[in-house]
């Protein structure tokens, strides 16, 4: 049979039993749709993580109080209070470090006019913005002099702007934090979600001394929750870690063999782990979705087998008038392929639609990439060929007399 006539024949054969064709295709639609959707969800997660890593800043070490065994691996450890502002000051002398940012934070209520908002207030030094590679959208940062003099100035995140000010310009306005007036001197750029899913824009930064002395009654004066430090370069990371360990053990007077009362974590490594697990999630989601594609493929094989049996006589007639084995093979293979490709087409559209819905309803980042579409299409087509081959071969190998005698 000429190659251009075969698709038309296949199309007609599928049209002869629309309900069955539709139901068989549904299996394929669901399979391909699921693959597209799952890959989109996985890709979205991956890109969220990647973005979070880029926003985080690089060459970072996180020094937090508590032993590594008791602190576990939580990013926000720090129940013990062994780390002080003085430790941070001492660390600034280390040549392997380019920035040292001690942080003290606590929850607090904000008020501006009649509006209230609960948020986390961070007491930081000017280095904090540096290590987080965080820029101001407007206004200016506070200086080290603000820290030393415990001035009541604040930098506010995008979420705070939205919640307290709406369209109003917050610069120069006075907000109340735990009823104390603070002047807004800067607005932070949007930062998005952190690796552990916190909204980083829901934040107020104030000088650390202000936070410790005026805002929060600190049980252990001078202690901090953690210190983020930046190494001079990627190559200095290990040296920096060793220097910090030595410095802090000396300052804390820890004897040889005693466990350190602080923990140092390489944030880049943490981020990489997160990126890897996001990647693994994409693969796993794709694999799960592939199972439904497999089930769809088996459905196609089933229907094609039924079709070959039903049309045995037709096959006999075609052979009697000169169809070769490859003509019959091609005919049934094309029918299976057409089922899969059409199903794949509709499934892809459904998957894209589903991705759009998920991103809207669940407020997740969902990314449909062209490679995921190509992948699922290729998958659909190969499913058609793979599962269509056996029935088609069965048809092609029928003996003409026996096929004609059928029924």
């Amino acid at each position: 049979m000429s190659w251009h006539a075969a698709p038309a024949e296949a199309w007609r054969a599928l049209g002869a039993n629309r309900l069955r064709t539709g139901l068989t295709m549904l299996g394929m639609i669901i399979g391909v749709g699921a693959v597209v959707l799952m890959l989109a969800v996985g890709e979205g997660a991956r890109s969220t993580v990647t973005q979070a890593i880029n926003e985080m800043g690089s060459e970072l070490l996180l020094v937090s109080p508590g032993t590594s065994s008791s602190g576990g691996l939580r990013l926000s450890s720090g129940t013990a209070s062994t780390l002080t502002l003085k430790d941070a000051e001492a660390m600034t002398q280390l040549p392997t470090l380019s920035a040292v940012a001690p942080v003290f934070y606590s929850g607090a209520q904000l008020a501006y006019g009649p509006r209230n908002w609960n948020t986390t207030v961070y007491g930081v030094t000017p280095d904090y913005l540096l290590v987080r590679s965080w820029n101001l959208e407007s206004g200016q940062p506070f200086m080290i002099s603000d820290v030393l003099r415990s001035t009541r100035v604040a930098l506010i995140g995008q979420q705070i702007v939205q919640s307290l000010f709406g369209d109003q310009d917050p610069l120069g306005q006075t907000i109340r934090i735990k009823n104390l007036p603070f002047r807004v001197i800067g607005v932070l750029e949007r930062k998005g979600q952190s690796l552990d899913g916190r909204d980083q824009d829901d934040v107020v930064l104030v000088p650390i001394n202000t936070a410790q002395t005026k805002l929060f009654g600190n049980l252990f004066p001078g202690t901090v929750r953690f210190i983020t430090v930046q190494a001079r370069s990627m190559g200095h990371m290990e040296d920096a870690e060793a220097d910090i360990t030595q410095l802090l053990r000396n300052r804390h007077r820890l004897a040889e063999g005693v466990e350190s009362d602080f923990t140092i974590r390489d944030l880049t490594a943490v981020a990489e782990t997160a990126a890897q697990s996001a990647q693994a999630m994409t693969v796993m989601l794709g694999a799960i979705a592939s199972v439904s594609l497999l089930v769809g493929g088996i459905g196609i094989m089933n229907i094609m087998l039924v079709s070959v049996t039903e049309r045995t006589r037709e096959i006999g007639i075609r052979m009697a008038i000169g169809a070769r084995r490859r003509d019959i093979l091609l005919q049934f293979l094309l029918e299976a392929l057409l089922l899969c490709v059409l199903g794949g087409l509709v499934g892809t559209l459904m998957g894209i639609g589903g991705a759009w819905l998920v991103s809207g309803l669940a407020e997740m980042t969902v990314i449909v990439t062209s490679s995921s579409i190509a992948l699922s299409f290729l998958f659909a087509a190969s499913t058609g060929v793979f599962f269509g081959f056996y029935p088609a071969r069965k048809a092609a190998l029928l003996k003409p007399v026996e096929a004609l005698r059928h029924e």
Partner: protein
Amino acid sequence: MSSLRIPLSPSASFPLAGKRDESSPLIQVAGLCKHYPLVGGGTTPVLHDIHLAVAPGEFVALMGPSGSGKSTFMNILGCLDVPNAGEYQLAGQSVAQMDHNELAVLRNRQMGFVFQGFNLLQRSSIAENVALPLLYAGIGKAERRQRAHELLEQVGLVHRAEARPNQLSGGQQQRVAIARALANRPPLILADEPTGNLDTQTSGEIMALFNRLNVEQGITLLLVTHEPDIARYARRLVRFKDGRIVHDGEVNV
């Protein structure tokens, strides 16, 4: 339909038929045997040592009681089935040596098969049914359409070209089947009880059509029938009994 005349005495109408050159036969069968396996083991013989030669342009009727092996023989001649022993040459070529593809091409170009049950594809139109052998011959669309038109004209069914087979009468369907058998201008037509499902009047029309093809186009015809009236259209009669040829000669029915 009125274009088909029904001759009252078919043999008398064609006095020259059947007297053709028999030096190089179109069909040459020697020592042909066919048996089917029995359910409990062993085999049941259906054709024993068949010898037959048919020259180009002959019109042969095959008769015999039910179960005598006529259809089995026709299927082997039509390359739809293979014998267990013996030699079959079609136009001087030994069929036994051919592979599946070559046999398919042979069925496509060298012969047309007409069945008792018409065997048209129900999903396809009349014109498409007629053009199907051309499709498998790799002929282009325009030419297929043109040739299908010609063929339908020949059997007087041009006006039903777009109809489905089940919209036609039995006689009309059989004429479509004959048109399809003629598609690639084969030298040979094999017809297994082509009038078996038709009434006498329609049978006469179909036989007249066969006769015309034989006389006007020199197409060799082998036709199985149970009815003496039908066999009388032929110029030669071969009688089967229990898988053997018991008569080969004049049409003495």
